[in-house]
């Protein structure tokens, strides 16, 4: 299967939109090569602003540009976009409900050898708690492209979590991307795996492994972490009576928490979470870290088996 990085879906969408919409402006904080926003800069240098190593200012300038009618896309690493500039995001952008779009690249453990300081494992928790903010976690290149286009069309602040490593392209041009709606990737009866980002591919592989053992697993892709598709989650709880969540992120405050909140309020069923648990990341090769932190298909399989034994 073809592999491409979500950060490149982001920049490709920016370039496409930039050609027809003069209000699209792009900002970066000395990481334009890594975030790939430099591709936009090459095409539209007059609509690109590099603020230097200054992420708080990055979001502040984007806020100002939005107030002047522009549609700013601010790009930097996830850890700085969601962490360093969090209060600018909260009070300036979300509280004022400004039309600012944020592309957080190098999210998650796949950032690899740079180590814990650069691996954003808290950004779902940090962003989904903010009123007015829409949070997208695309699972592949095409979905990232659609998420970026959707972000420009939505009014209000949007955060898009992007990654450095190439991921298998699971969706097609025709796959719909509807903000706030989960995407059914595979039908199943015995359990539902609810995943986002890089873990959607692992979830599909896990479902294939489970099939061989006569366990029928449904797979749902939550590309919109906020607003969250409660209906698809409640339906999964009701119909399959067991859920496993999977994310390249902390389970506390992340997708695991978000899904649990819906499940316990509406239709309590056993639930297991795959993700990091109260832990910083560490240096290592990306794939090696996925195994080290138990984020692989086999780990999802193990969680499914565990959750099934807990079914009434």
């Amino acid at each position, binding site marked *: 299967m073809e592999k491409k990085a979500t950060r490149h879906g982001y920049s490709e969408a920016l370039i496409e939109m930039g050609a027809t919409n003069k209000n699209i402006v792009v900002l970066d904080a000395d990481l334009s090569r890594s975030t790939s926003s430099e591709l936009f800069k090459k095409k539209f240098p007059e609509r690109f602003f590099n603020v230097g190593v200054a992420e708080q200012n990055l979001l502040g300038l984007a806020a100002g540009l939005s107030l002047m009618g522009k549609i700013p896309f601010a790009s930097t690493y996830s850890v700085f976009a969601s962490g360093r500039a969090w209060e600018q995001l909260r009070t300036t952008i979300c509280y004022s409900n400004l039309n600012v779009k944020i592309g957080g690249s190098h999210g998650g453990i796949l950032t690899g050898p*740079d180590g814990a300081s650069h691996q954003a494992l808290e950004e779902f928790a940090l962003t989904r708690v903010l009123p007015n903010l829409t949070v997208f976690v695309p699972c592949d290149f095409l979905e990232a492209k659609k998420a970026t286009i959707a972000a420009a069309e939505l009014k209000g602040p949007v955060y898009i979590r992007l990654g450095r490593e190439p991921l298998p392209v699971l969706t097609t041009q025709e796959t719909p991307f509807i903000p706030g709606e989960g995407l059914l990737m595979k039908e199943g009866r015995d359990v539902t795996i609810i995943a986002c980002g890089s873990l959607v591919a692992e979830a599909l592989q896990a479902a294939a492994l489970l099939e061989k053992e006569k366990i029928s697993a449904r797979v749902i892709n939550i590309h919109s972490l906020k607003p969250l598709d409660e209906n698809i989650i409640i339906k999964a709880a009701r119909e399959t009576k067991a859920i496993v969540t999977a994310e390249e992120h902390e389970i506390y405050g992340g997708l695991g928490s978000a899904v649990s909140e819906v499940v316990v309020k509406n239709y309590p069923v056993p639930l297991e979470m795959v993700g990091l648990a109260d832990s910083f990341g560490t240096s290592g090769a990306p794939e090696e870290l996925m195994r080290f932190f138990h984020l692989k298909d086999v780990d999802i399989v193990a969680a499914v088996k565990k959750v099934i034994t807990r079914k009434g």
Partner: protein
Amino acid sequence: MDIAQLEEQAKKIRQDIIKMLGAAGSGHPGGSLSSTDLMTALFFNILRQKPKEPRWPGRDRFILSKGHCAPVLYACLAELGYFPIEQLLTLRKLGSCLQGHPSCQDVAGVEVSTGSLGMGLSVATGMALGAKFDQSDVRVYCLVGDGELQEGQIWEAAMSAGHYRLDNLCCIVDNNDLQIDGRIKEVMNVYPIADKFKAFGWQAMEIEGHDFKQILAAYDRASKTKEKPTVIIARTIKGKGISFMEDQEEWHGKAPNKELTAKALKELE
């Protein structure tokens, strides 16, 4: 060490840096090599420390605010005996204490974890304040990048260090004139650097950052200055010592492959 010995030591540190990065396959040579001479003089001639007793309370403190230059810090620590030299080759590997950016929970000699730019000078200022409070003669040194100066927190720290007249604090700016996306002036101009620090009540010195005579004189003057923190703005060359890396922005955050590692090591013979 005399100047000839320091030069020899700096060459060893540069060799260590290239070897570690070659083995790691990723990391940041440019800023590690530009700050090697400043770091060598500091670690081998200036800092009071006991490598076998890294937590000795009387030690001078050093903070690598530009944490991506971890290789130069690790090389200095290893050469001084904080940990075995062989360990350098585990840089950035799973399970290694030598994380991509310095982790104080993992390495003796690292005072605080860094990697997110702009944070170190505040911590150094806090340490200097603590030392003053204790009436101790501990001195605190902090290395920052010139691109890093674009972070607002740097200037909040500068304001507070000037306000508290922390003459036990010395900030070193590795002025290699490059950041990731290009020349400092073109990306986001931070010049004039000396005037900015002076406006916050600092003593500012501008030196050649590959001239040991000037480096040692600057450290000496900083330690004798009263009532003011000192900033040493050292003009350096990014990638210094390796012909194909010198002043090349592409060598900010890229490790040499096998062939280029060998070539670089040959230049350092």
